[in-house]
């Protein structure tokens, strides 16, 4: 059996990749994908923990997180489309009217 620490290391790595992506990428779609990656890293760690501690709370939590991530995707893409309509660009540096 694969030890749980492997899953947790993978989850931590995925989470870190997501954080780095949010920090350095300028395309808002890619930034959004990185946030989804962070959420999925958490899902992986929750399932792994659920297995170690021996109850199902973590797995149930994952379902809720998946629902929230779907709602977030719907709203996020809506906002990104609204931004694209006004700026014709997906670069976050274009959204700079507020930083004066």
């Amino acid at each position, binding site marked *: 059996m694969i030890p749980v620490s492997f899953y947790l290391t993978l989850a931590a790595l995925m989470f870190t990749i997501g954080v780095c992506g949010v920090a350095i990428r300028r395309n808002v779609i890619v930034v959004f994908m990185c*946030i989804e990656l*962070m959420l999925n890293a958490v899902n992986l760690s929750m399932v792994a923990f659920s297995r170690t501690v021996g109850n199902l709370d973590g797995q149930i*939590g994952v379902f809720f997180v998946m629902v929230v991530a779907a709602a977030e995707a719907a*709203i996020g893409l809506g906002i990104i489309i609204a931004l694209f309509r*006004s700026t014709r660009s997906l670069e976050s540096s274009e959204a700079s009217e507020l930083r004066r």
Partner: protein
Amino acid sequence: MSPQMLSDIALTSPMWIVTLGALLLLLGDAFTASGWSRSFVSAVILLLGIVATLLTQSGYWEGSTAFSGTIFVDRVSWFFFLLIQGGALLSVLVGMSRLSDERVEAVGEYYVLLLLATVGACMFVASAELITMFIGLETMSLALYCMCGAASSLRRSTESALKYFLLGSFSSAFLLFGISILYGLSASTFIPEIAEVLNRSTPVALAYIGFGLLLVGLAFKIAAVPFHFWAPDVYEGAPTPVTVYMACVVKAAAVGVCLRVLWTMFGGMLDGWSTAIWYIAFLSMTLGNLLALCQRGLKRMLAYSSIAHAGYITVAFLAPGAAYGGGPAILYYLVAYSLMTIGSFGVVLAVTSKRAGDPRADDISTFHGLGYSNPFLGILMALFLLSLAGIPPGMAGLLGKIYVFNAAMQSDYLGLVVIGVLNSAVSVYYYLRVIVAMYFIEPKEAPVQVGPLGFSMASILVLCALGILAIGVFPAALYDGLTQVAHAF
């Protein structure tokens, strides 16, 4: 339905009523033509929620839970339900006459989102279980992201929605990772059980990591430095009625959750987290005030001032419970801050909404001579700003600071108190600058056209002013009540 289920629903009825109201409002908005006031109906729904809180939750002073222990029904929930729904009600009423000026076209959807965000905030603060807390947080946040972008014809509104969305979901991912780690550590997601596990043994490194991740997510929501950078942009770009709502409701809910997390869940690890909170308080007060000094736009200035106020509140996190007065100090500060912030953003809304398309509409030069061209708004704004600065006659703000600093002093954080007092002195400059602009600078152009305020806006502004005076001059009754509430920690 079992009797247990029915009693759980009755105990959480404030949330059910507002949820059902929001859904009915959505249907009514979709299937009927205009001709009825969506804002009035949503105000009535919020009022019903407040009545339900008073009727159902007041009997549970000793603390209970609902839905298999996932929702706290106690005096803390009671207080925050009233504060959140009351703040939402005031911000609906103060903004209702100016929504079309602020280019919010879909008024029905706007109010549906506002009601759902209020439900989310209530659930966030009442949750006794971490997944429930996450769902409450996201219900509140997702609705707010849309509200920020409600003026979709204005580019800065869309931009603020995008910034809030990206940074908000980024921060909730941190919160969620913290939840996952605490679950792995304690095999439970219930706050009381996690607290028990944490208290039983000496804290391991994993507990600190989980705590740190949770703290990042929560500090984002109360806009404390170093997790504040979304706040000025979002407060400035969002339509001003949304800013009013965010500044009072979201901050109150997030502070409530911080109290539960820091004091109830991590109460046994106080020595471990006090340094982190010390630095967050210090940085929020100092950077918030220093950056507010160099702002010309009023909304941006008040946004930085809200960061500084988050810092003052954070100071009292270091004095847990009611023993040193930290609990009542924070709750009193939240009441005072909600009144001051609804009032001051409300006046900004009244003055700037006729020129909402102009990004410079809230520049301080707009306020030149306002004290003479519109004495009513001038005197109210002066009171709100004096209260934010903590100068009599704005006694509410002053007492809030005194309570907070007193609590920190009792817990031996003298250094932080000195920094806080110095910061209050700095903050006087930028608040008074607006008063000077209103009363002592002649306007170069014709004074700004404010337009008729409307009954609801005028009466809410007066109500906020009277509230500030009342809790400032007669604080004893409120403070004693809040001490009772804080004994729950």
